[in-house]
């Protein structure tokens, strides 16, 4: 059997089966008309990891997340979250979407947006009570936006908007988080602060999947990486999987300086 240095994926082992595993994807294919967007994806994410999903544009990263959340239909395959279909596990999953998908002129304040994360727990007919508001304030504090709680969202900067969505996910107190480019419009200092937050989550046993655009920081922030280019190139611990060879297979000829930087970082990190 020829082994090209790819880490073979497997979900074997007692810690990676069924109800303990946050995410198992099997045979996932998503296609529009005849164009496949995501193809034969098999994936197994163990609990308590910070996972980076990387790949070139159009590689299907957002599609993968949306398929996991039942937001788009799939052509084939199964997705199980803690051993059950997503619909039964909604309360354990949090989602931070890409920035563009909302109307910024909507008359809501940052606090209102964060409080939306509690609606699933509040249930129908109940007002947003003090407890929900307090949780929302707490989350805003965690992302450093406490002073902006009453601002209407179009008055926030891009990075602040992104942090508001992060706070909304935090309030949900989920076990598994999907985040679609959460650091896209954010400056370096804010990014580090947000990553620290995510690492807190990880320490509490949560699992965080992040579609990440900046290869240079992957080895620093994430202990597990998924390389995706329509199909899984590799998935596993960052140290094992994030190397020159796999990056070349994912990005083709696009990497030059970037891959060298990644290698350098990899070697220098403890």
């Amino acid at each position: 059997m020829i082994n090209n240095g790819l880490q073979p994926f497997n979900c074997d082992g007692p810690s990676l089966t069924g109800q303990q595993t946050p995410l198992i994807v099997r045979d996932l294919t998503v296609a529009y008309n005849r164009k496949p967007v995501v193809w034969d994806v098999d994936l197994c994410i163990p609990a308590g990891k910070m996972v980076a999903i990387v790949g070139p544009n159009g590689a299907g990263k957002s599609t993968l997340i949306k398929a996991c959340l039942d937001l788009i239909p799939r052509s084939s395959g199964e997705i199980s979250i803690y051993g059950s279909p997503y619909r039964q596990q909604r309360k354990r999953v949090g989602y931070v979407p890409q920035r563009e998908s909302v109307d910024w002129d909507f008359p809501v304040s940052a606090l209102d947006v964060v409080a939306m994360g509690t609606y699933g727990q509040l249930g129908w007919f109940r007002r947003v009570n003090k407890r929900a508001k307090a949780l929302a304030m707490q989350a805003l504090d965690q992302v450093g936006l406490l002073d902006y709680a009453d601002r209407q969202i179009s008055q926030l900067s891009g990075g602040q908007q992104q942090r508001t969505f992060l706070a909304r996910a935090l309030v949900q107190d989920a076990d598994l988080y999907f985040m679609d480019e959460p650091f896209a419009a954010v400056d370096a200092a804010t990014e580090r602060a947000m990553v620290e937050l995510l690492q807190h989550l990880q320490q509490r046993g949560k699992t965080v999947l992040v579609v990440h655009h900046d290869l240079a920081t992957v080895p620093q922030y994430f202990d597990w990486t998924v390389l995706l280019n329509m199909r899984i190139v590799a998935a596993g611990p960052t140290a094992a999987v994030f190397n020159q060879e796999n990056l070349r297979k994912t990005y083709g000829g696009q990497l030059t300086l970037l891959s060298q930087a990644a290698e350098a970082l990899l070697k220098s990190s403890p």
Partner: protein
Amino acid sequence: MPDVSEIWDVILLRDYNTRLVVFCTMLLGCACGLMGGFLLLRKRSLMGDTLSHAALPGVGFAFMFGVWMGGDGKSLPLLLCGAALTGLLGCATVLFIRNQTRIKDDAAMGIVLSVFFGAGIALLGLIQTMPKGSAAGLESFIYGKTASMVMQDFKLLVFITLSVVCLSLLLFKELRLLCFDEKFAASLGLPVRALDLLLLGLVTAVTVAGMQSVGLILIIAFLITPAAAARFWTDRLGLMLILSAAIGGVSGWLGASLSAFLPRLPAGAMIVLVAALFFLASLLGGIKRGVLVRVLRQRSLQRRIGRQHLLRALYEILEAASPLESRSQPIVRTPVPFRFVRGRRSWSDVELRKILKRACADGLLRHQQGGDEIMLTEAGLAQAAKMTRNHRLWEFYLIEYAEVATSRVDRDADTVEHVLGHEMVARLELKLKKNSQVGPNPVPASPHPIQPID
């Protein structure tokens, strides 16, 4: 029910009035179909709605102006001018609201539509109290007077239709670019604003002229439905516009004719319903984008995918089972237990059995041991080898040329030679052979390790 001679009378357009009505509505249908095509692609289909409602106060003002000037106020050119003016003013207001405030497109249209129309109603209320003002003539702008058209209407519609057709032909490639990619058009130096205004002007002319003969609702329908129906049949703009005009014209003719010989069927409503039927038929059966076609295409795609998965799975099982030394020989055909195949992918028992049944019917494999074992035929093995080879070439291509691959990949492993070309395929095969230690087996080794069978 009318008798046969009456029907023939209508079809042959023996009656002057019927002739007039049919021709007028046909012309209008063609002109609206044409304009509607452009509107649909610019995603401004409801502009007809806004325009026609906003035109009403203009009619009122024009009438009052005409009376004030000493006439009877019902001169058609005057009324049309008034209608066109407020219609255009309404569109300008929509743009203004959209650009200067945070109110979005749809709300801006709704505001202009309702406020202008309300003003029109208020004006009509005043006109009704005027000595010369029996508003009955003016209300034809809302309800149309399809049954009682006159030669003047016909001449007007001929003029408008001809202008619309000529301008569309002359400016076809500019308008096509505008509809497809406004920014690129602007970067080429095309006067995007002017073209937009021209389009708006043409739509206004068609709307206002049409309104007073067939009424508000029919004009709105004419500007949307034929174009939407035509869209399902083709992906080429020119053909779509022709089809759209044709559907509009035929709806006009059929609707008006039906209304002429069946009692109590208002022509406007009939025409709208005929157009809607065309739309429904196109939605379901349209060759390029109809629902039926898409469903069938999807089904055939699923079948092909299932077939390829099966053959590849069988091949890989046989490949893994044969000892390493004999890898340079072609694979031996041995029976494969059902459960091995079942375990390869996430398909259910029922799905797999269906796929197997179809493959069996196509002579690619046989069942043995009462269905517990599967044996590929000669033909089946050949196809399986080909499928696997193509799939692995695709995978290898993806790896080698990752940065361009996403745009070229087709799910269908059959087409690797079509898409990549024979030369590229030969090059890939050569590379694979160099990398692997396998002999001249027609199927290259898999770029990724295959799961062992347990």
